């Protein structure tokens, strides 16, 4: 009985994916994807996603570690701050980013002096993706670091390791499955980022915007193949992270 209930809920949740797979035809995929330049958005999405992940690892990991280790005053305030960008609808984030990094803001002017712009550029796309995906990474990284027993780190210190070495030999390996999960969720968010992107980075096109414009211009049938591309591109990393952390867990259990 419980299996049936679970199966019904599970299938209902998978509904959109099932619909996508049942409404696609090979000919539609072939004709959509073989159009000239059809795969350029894929490249844009992959590149911006990679940059986004790099930025998240560099800025999100230390913040998450500090939050997890209680080294910051008023820890709830820090968490609430990170949660804020999770609670804001992506569309609103996009609007607010205009006020933050748009051409007529101090940051925008500074970027202008460097011949950069944070609207309708690759930079803008990356900024939008970082803001849409950062809280997913930071919060799961925080949880991953919190899961590492501080007594293990203490013991490693007493065995002669300075803190940086403890982080590399104990903290990081133990937190890595959690970090990988967080990173892969952030990757999926970055790949699918749309709300903030459509406001500040209409160009260059990533896959989500390509789906949207194809839908607007030629209709549902020709948009669906790009949805499949999005799924195929966004999914492997989370899947790999999941399988890998499950294996790490199994190995630990001996």
């Amino acid at each position, binding site marked *: 009985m419980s299996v049936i209930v679970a199966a019904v809920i599970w299938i209902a949740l998978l509904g959109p994916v099932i619909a996508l797979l049942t409404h696609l035809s090979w000919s539609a995929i072939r004709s959509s994807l073989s159009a000239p330049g059809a795969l350029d958005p894929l490249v844009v999405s992959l590149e911006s996603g990679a940059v986004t992940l790099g930025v998240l690892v560099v800025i999100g990991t230390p913040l998450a570690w500090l939050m997890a280790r209680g080294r910051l005053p008023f820890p709830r305030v820090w968490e609430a701050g990170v949660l804020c960008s999770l609670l804001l609808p992506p569309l609103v984030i996009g609007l607010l980013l205009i006020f933050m990094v748009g051409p007529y803001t101090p940051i925008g002017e500074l970027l202008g002096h460097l011949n950069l712009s944070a609207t309708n550029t690759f930079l803008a796309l990356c900024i939008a993706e970082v803001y849409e995906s950062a809280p997913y990474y930071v919060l799961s990284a925080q949880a991953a670091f919190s899961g590492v*027993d501080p007594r*293990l780190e*203490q013991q490693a210190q*007493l*065995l*002669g390791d300075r803190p940086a070495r403890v982080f590399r030999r104990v903290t990081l390996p*133990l937190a890595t499955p959690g970090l990988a999960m967080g990173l892969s969720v952030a990757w999926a968010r970055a790949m699918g980022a749309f709300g903030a992107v459509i406001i500040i980075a209409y160009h260059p096109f990533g896959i989500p915007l390509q789906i949207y414009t194809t839908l607007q211009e030629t209709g549902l049938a020709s948009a669906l193949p790009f949805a499949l591309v999005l799924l195929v591109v966004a999914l492997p990393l989370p899947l790999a992270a999941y399988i890998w952390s499950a294996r*790490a867990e199994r190995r630990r*259990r*001996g």
Partner: protein
Amino acid sequence: MLNADVEVDRRDFTVRASIAVPPGGRLALFGPSGAGKTTILEVIAGLAAPRRGRIVLGERVLTSTSPPVRAVPPWKRRVGLLRQDPALFPHLSVRANLAYGGTVGEPELAEMAGVLGLGGLLSAMPARLSGGQGHRVALGRLLLAPCDALLLDEPFTGLDASLRRGLTDLVAGLVTARGVPAVLVAHELADAQAFADRLAVLDRGELLQDGPPDEVVLRPASRRAAELVGYLGFVPVQGLPEGAGLAGIHPERTLPGAHPDHGVVLTGTVSTRRPAGAGWEADVRVAGTVITCRLPDRPPDGEFVLTALDPPYFGPDGTAVPAPDRRPEQGRGQGRGQVRG
């Protein structure tokens, strides 16, 4: 040699301790939970800072709050700490755990594994180990790392008695063989006695007494120290050098019947009795107070005579006073009390 003379502030009291452990020496810090025993170990390990103090290990000053101020970080102290949780690194095999802190070669590692009975487990993951095995790995990991002093914070609590005794003997043997000073924290007297060649009694941050285990147990320095090492009854006696005082009665140091040559003869009435191990435990009302005693046989109803073997005596202020027969001008057996209930 490990010398520590420290004062550490805690929320409700200050821990003051001054200990000295020679190489190969085994000191037990004994006291009730919350007495500040663990705090002392953490300060020695560099995990907590003292308000005032100086810790010297061998030639090295690890902590000094007076100039020249020093606070060597934990990773440079070469002090091993073993807690109740063995804190093995769960992502590393037994072999990698053992080798974690040291630059040890394979023969040394294999020898240690053999001594600890871990020979067949080197490639196992910690999650697979039993409690006793886990502690042996943690111990081996400490001993294979550069380690000039060993701190043991109730490491074997929670293991069953025979396993605990075996591990305690193992550690004691290794400490002697290595010639490192060792400090054990224990709240069970038997654990402390099984390990230590010196016993320090700690209560609410104060070091009450420090001496060979026999002496601390048989001649506690104060009434409080006596209570902590298991004296459950205090009977008023006359004829002490300072006049009136109390004799401390340890349940395990009583004999049924009158043996005036061996201690104080007490006469009282049995108020409750219960089987205890292979014998009996009885509460006996003597001179307006209740004492507990262990007896080989079931005590009778009504009046009961027993002898407290060579008890310690305490003056009105609670500090130990000499037993009446210890005064040189008195012969053996003189001045021993007879107390009637």
